[in-house]
């Protein structure tokens, strides 16, 4: 369970009196400041809707499945920390949703959510079980020349199929009070203004642009992993995950986000199947489906597992190894790749190479977490005394991100010195969150430790301050 920021003691009464005077004085001054610009307002409104608006439904919000503290996704370990009355488990305590709304066993064990992507005519048999994709770096991943691609199969939104319209479909599928799904009775549909705000908030999350590879990495194994990743005759990863993002580039320019049939559905011994629960095949895009699924970005991958649309693989190493297996190499995508290879090979990697690519993915994930942590810490340090609660909120998010960095690097046995700096940064941020007078100083020290960690991962000339 992630450690939350908890301050053991509150300030002394005398301190409170002095602080109150200062707060009132500063608040009076603050009231005269210029209000935030409209885009920030829209993002803030979207954030509020995302985490708090139930749309008169069953109690769920967008944030029920896309948890900020779990990288805007959920996984079994996180689910295990939730109380039994969490709206995620609505099928366990709402009699109207007991059947054919979710499969609680698959939800708790594998973080799988039920979706009726092929229709609502036969709820007993017609559904798919999918993981919750994170909503980070959507600005880099949703668009394609063929139109927007949302959700695991790229066709997740009703209406015009855009990210803006996505929430409407999500409300109908996941927020309903009963399986009747009557608008105005079982839920209310989001308004145009709410959809605009939700879109603005989601687009503000995570990276706003793709990396430019190669990065001047320091570790021998991640560095080799990057070389294999970029080698179009060996790893071939960069063809569909250009710059470790979610867009394809086959050598003639970037073609945006795309769908492929990579054979994930054909994996043997998928965890959900092993339970004996009904898990119908997922035919992906369209109805009937063409077997293709959307390409997710890889920068955020290492800390957002389990992997693939059906959460079939738990580790990043396993996810990379998938592309060396029969399921991928016999798939339409694997066959196409082999057809264009001089030796007729799709992707063939050995154990050390698989681990090297995964190490590279772990490092770029940690670098992104560090970037976000520094941004959050800097935001917190800039907050005035009267904005202490907001500062604490930013610190909490930075602490979570830093915890992810530590977990991702430690999990691959990578960069122990960077891990040490990150642990120190986390401790400092935790202290800052509890400190009345030293918040800024401690936060600035935490930023320095983040930078030290980053300098362990990449050559400092490429490090952004």
């Amino acid at each position, binding site marked *: 369970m992630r450690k939350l920021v908890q301050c053991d003691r509150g300030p002394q009464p005398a301190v409170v009196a002095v602080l109150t005077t200062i707060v009132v004085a500063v608040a009076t001054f603050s009231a005269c400041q210029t209000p935030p610009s409209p885009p920030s307002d829209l993002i803030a409104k979207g954030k509020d809707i995302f985490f708090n608006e139930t749309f008169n439904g069953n109690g769920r919000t967008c944030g029920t499945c896309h948890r900020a503290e779990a990288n805007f996704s959920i996984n079994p370990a996180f689910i295990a920390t939730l109380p039994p009355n969490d709206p995620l488990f609505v099928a366990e305590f709402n009699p109207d949703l007991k059947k054919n709304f979710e499969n609680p066993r698959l939800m708790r064990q594998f973080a799988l959510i039920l979706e009726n992507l092929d229709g609502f005519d036969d709820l007993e048999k017609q559904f798919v079980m999918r993981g919750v994709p994170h909503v980070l770096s959507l600005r880099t991943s949703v668009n394609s020349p063929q139109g927007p691609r949302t959700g695991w199969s790229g*066709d997740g939104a009703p209406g*015009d199929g855009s990210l803006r319209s996505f929430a409407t479909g999500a409300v*109908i599928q996941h927020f309903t009070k009963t399986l009747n799904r009557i*608008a*105005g009775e079982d839920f209310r549909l989001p308004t145009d203004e709410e*959809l605009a705000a939700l879109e603005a908030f989601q687009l503000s999350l995570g990276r706003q642009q793709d990396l430019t590879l190669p990065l001047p990495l320091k570790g021998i194994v991640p560095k080799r992993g990057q070389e294999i990743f970029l080698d179009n005759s060996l790893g071939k990863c960069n063809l569909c995950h250009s710059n470790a993002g979610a867009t394809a580039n*086959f050598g003639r320019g970037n073609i945006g986000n795309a769908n492929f049939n990579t054979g994930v559905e054909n994996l043997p011994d998928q965890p959900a199947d092993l339970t004996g629960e009904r898990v119908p095949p997922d035919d992906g895009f369209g109805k009937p489906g063409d077997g293709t699924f959307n390409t997710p970005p890889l920068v955020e991958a290492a800390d957002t597992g389990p992997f693939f649309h059906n959460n079939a693989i738990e580790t990043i190493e396993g996810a990379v190894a998938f592309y060396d297996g029969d399921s991928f190499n016999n798939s339409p995508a694997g066959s*196409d790749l082999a057809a264009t290879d001089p030796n007729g090979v799709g992707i063939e990697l050995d154990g050390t190479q698989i681990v090297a690519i995964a190490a590279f993915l772990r490092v770029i994930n940690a670098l992104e977490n560090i970037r976000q942590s520094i941004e959050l810490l800097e935001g917190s340090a800039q907050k005035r005394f009267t904005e202490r609660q907001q500062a604490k909120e930013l610190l909490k998010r930075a602490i979570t991100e830093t915890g992810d960095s530590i977990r991702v690097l430690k999990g691959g046995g990578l960069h122990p010195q960077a891990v040490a700096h990150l642990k120190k940064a986390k401790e400092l941020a935790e202290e800052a969150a509890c400190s009345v007078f030293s918040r800024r100083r401690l936060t600035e020290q935490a930023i320095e430790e983040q930078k030290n960690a980053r300098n362990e991962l990449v050559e400092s000339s490429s490090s952004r301050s």
Partner: protein
Amino acid sequence: MLKVLMQIGVIVAWLGGITYAHSQQMTEMFIPVGQSPGVSNKTSLVGMIESIDAKNRTVTVAAPSGARTVDLTSRTKIWLDRSLLKATNQTGTFADLQKGRKVEVKLEPGEGKQVAEWVKVQLTEPSAGPGAAAK
């Protein structure tokens, strides 16, 4: 030269597998007439059914911009919007397209012939149901 040919081969092979993005029709059926995000009041046609030609499978809709005749194909989805009756929306048939009923038509993209991707028929009477006109 070989490299160029291989690159072209990769592009052709992979583009063959690329599918065009489209909206998700499954949850669309639960959205009442006139409320489809990014579609209603923008690209769809909302109005009353003026006439029906069952033989040619066309329907003429009197919309604020004027009467328009659209083709329905075997791919066209027909849904019954029963939200005003506080009832679940259902899949409908061509027989549910009746003169005087309010409809929303989403047209398939492209120039020329107006082909409906989906049609929502608003029902306001409890007796009306799937294929009621045929009964």
